[in-house]
């Protein structure tokens, strides 16, 4: 999808004014948080597993070249064709070429955020291929012609009534006369419709949660089983993923799986956890006859060894989104690209550049909840702050804000001036509050639209203290 991150303030305002969205967000928020908490309470050794998970990710990234080569070698040995893509354009080309060679007409997809990152659907449709999303959430937003608003729950911004009417419109031409409204009915309908898609597809595209260097396997977690049908029914299976997902061994992958599902949905393990290691072998009952993996870089190798390398540890669990009050207020679309919430606020500027995405690391209270719940120990608030430093060093951002901060810093570095000004400001501010004139102070309009300005006592502490000290000594 084309990034529109620079438009964040406007998109945020739209999200805040969207009552349906606000309702959906309020409903979703507590659920994820509670489920994760309960899952961790049942796992007393979580702190140790989390530390191990962080170590595995750090080690994998420190030796990424080695493990990627090993993964590619083992994967090829198992019959998987390995493709390297420097950027989105290369990945799109590779995948459309594979589809063309397979004489494909219909493509089914499992959920892949890397696919969203490079707009693979757009490329496939341009190549006259019919694309069907098979993850229920992705299917819903495909029908709505929208983009995911959450990395693990793409349609979390939609309520049941909206889904029901989307289905009614889309399924009418398939011969369904009646609308479905209950959750079970909606899921049943999706299952029926998607089943035909699974049976007719020529190519299946999925993402991968981990790549295992030791065995050349690709690991995929889902809760709907759509990943397995996508990978095994069509004759060609393409795994589209990015280079940082590699881990050394199967044991390492299972350690990460232990924290992934718990952090994401509060499940000890997802309903389906699949390991794909090459196409169908001679004595296999089923499976694709061709298997490909496309390994996307798209700016990631640039992050290695730098100040933000730890961001590549991310295993896309979404816990930081679920605990972020800014995400909880806006939902994912306000962020203007594939990756929302705290992980997106750091990753988007790194992949797209600060001129496009400088708003995101600023739109954060640095409350630290994201870093606390991150299962692989990414210091997200520190990185947001560091990005702000870069923004200032590059002279980006609002000139007015910079000028105000410069003035403030000057005053803060001159205590006598500071105390003189504070001594005058305290009574002035009190008068402004008391008279209601505070609402006419430029720049405070929106700040005070939703909250009163608590009036100061009327004298600065230092002035009172000086007086008191003088009284004591006299």
């Amino acid at each position, binding site marked *: 999808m084309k990034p529109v991150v620079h438009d964040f303030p406007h998109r945020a305002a739209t999200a805040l004014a969207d009552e349906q969205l606000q309702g959906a967000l309020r409903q979703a928020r507590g659920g994820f948080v509670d489920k994760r908490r309960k899952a961790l309470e049942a796992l007393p050794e979580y702190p140790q597993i989390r530390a191990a998970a962080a170590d595995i990710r750090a080690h994998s990234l420190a030796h990424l070249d080695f493990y990627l080569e090993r993964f590619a070698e083992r994967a090829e040995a198992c019959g998987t064709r390995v493709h390297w893509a420097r950027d989105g354009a290369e990945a799109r080309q590779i995948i459309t070429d594979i589809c063309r060679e397979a004489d494909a007409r219909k493509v089914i997809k499992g959920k892949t955020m890397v696919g969203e990152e490079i707009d693979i659907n757009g490329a496939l449709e341009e190549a006259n291929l019919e694309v069907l999303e098979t993850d229920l959430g992705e299917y819903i937003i495909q029908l709505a012609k929208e983009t995911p608003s959450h990395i693990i729950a793409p349609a979390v911004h939609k309520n049941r009534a909206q889904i029901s009417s989307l289905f009614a419109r889309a399924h009418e031409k398939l011969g369904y006369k009646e609308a479905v409204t209950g959750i079970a009915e909606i899921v049943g309908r999706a299952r029926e419709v998607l089943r035909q898609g699974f049976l007719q597809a020529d190519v299946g595209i999925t993402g991968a949660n981990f790549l295992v260097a030791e065995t050349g396997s690709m690991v995929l977690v889902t809760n709907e089983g759509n990943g397995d049908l996508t990978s095994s029914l069509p004759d060609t299976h393409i795994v589209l993923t990015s280079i940082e997902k590699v881990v050394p061994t199967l044991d390492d992958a299972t350690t990460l799986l232990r924290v992934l599902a718990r952090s994401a949905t509060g499940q000890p393990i997802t309903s389906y956890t699949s390991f794909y290691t090459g196409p169908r072998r001679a004595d296999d009952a089923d499976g694709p006859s061709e298997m490909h993996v496309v390994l996307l870089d798209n700016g990631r190798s640039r992050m290695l060894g730098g100040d933000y390398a730890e961001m590549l540890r991310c295993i896309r669990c979404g816990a930081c989104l679920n605990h972020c*009050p800014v995400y909880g207020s806006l939902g994912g679309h306000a962020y203007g690209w594939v990756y929302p919430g705290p992980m997106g606020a750091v990753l988007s500027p790194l992949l797209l550049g600060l001129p496009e995405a400088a708003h995101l690391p600023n739109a954060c*209270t640095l409350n630290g909840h994201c870093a606390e719940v991150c299962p692989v120990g990414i210091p997200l608030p520190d990185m947001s702050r560091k990005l702000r430093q870069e923004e200032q*060093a590059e002279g980006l951002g609002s000139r007015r804000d910079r000028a105000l901060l410069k003035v403030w*810093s000057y005053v*803060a570095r001159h205590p006598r001036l500071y105390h003189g000004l504070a001594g005058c400001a305290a009574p002035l501010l009190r008068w402004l509050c008391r008279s209601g004139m505070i609402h006419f102070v430029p720049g405070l309009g929106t700040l005070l639209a939703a909250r009163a300005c608590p009036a100061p*006592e009327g004298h600065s502490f230092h002035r009172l203290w000086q007086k008191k000290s003088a009284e004591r000594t006299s």
Partner: protein
Amino acid sequence: MPKVGLFVTCLVDLFRPNVAFSAIRLLEQAGCEVVVPEAQTCCGQPAYNNGHSRDTRAIARQVMTAFADCEYVVAPSGSCAAMLRLHYPRLFTMDAREQAKANAFAERCWELSSFLVEICGLEAGSGHYVGKVAYHDGCSGLRELQVRHQPRQLLGGISGLKLCEVADGESCCGFGGTFCVKYPQISARMADDKAKNLIATGAETVVAGELGCLLNIAGRLERLGSEIRVYHLAEVLAGRTDVAPIAGLESDS
């Protein structure tokens, strides 16, 4: 008698001197000699959190000099204490001598309630405050300094006070320093969630150890027409709640 320098914080200086007087009373009651160095202004968070590193370093040097002869530096704020304690050392990574100085300084810096409990050995607060009180955890204190049980322990000793917990209590109130000025609407939405959760507790008073949160929360509560009184932790512990609670004057003018 340990010599404690009170780091007043810029918000307390400007908005709520009563918090600083309360902190002084509490520290003196705990047996400390309290001084208030005049050369202090602000801890530097506004510059630091907006990416102005050079200005932040200059302010940090000034703070460290101002408190050079204090055995401890105590602030009635989790975020300012975290700035002094955790972030100052990170500002000087390029100069070993300055970093060593910042490290030594950081070790002496404390948030008020954790200082009273962990250094002064105070087991519980004394005094009297009638009513149901909801305690709000400021994010910096909670996550950067592990200030969680200390304020609750101290409030537990106040007679007449019934402490209650807040739903989704570990979520940010939306203040975030300059965040609430840069993104006032998002901040307001977060403050609204927090205020509603606080109202739902049925508490008559909201208490926190962080004036930024309190100004934000009080402002939103007032707009919602709530009668909840808002005080800083130090004010309740020191028995200095005879002054008007933190609020706008829209209600009393």
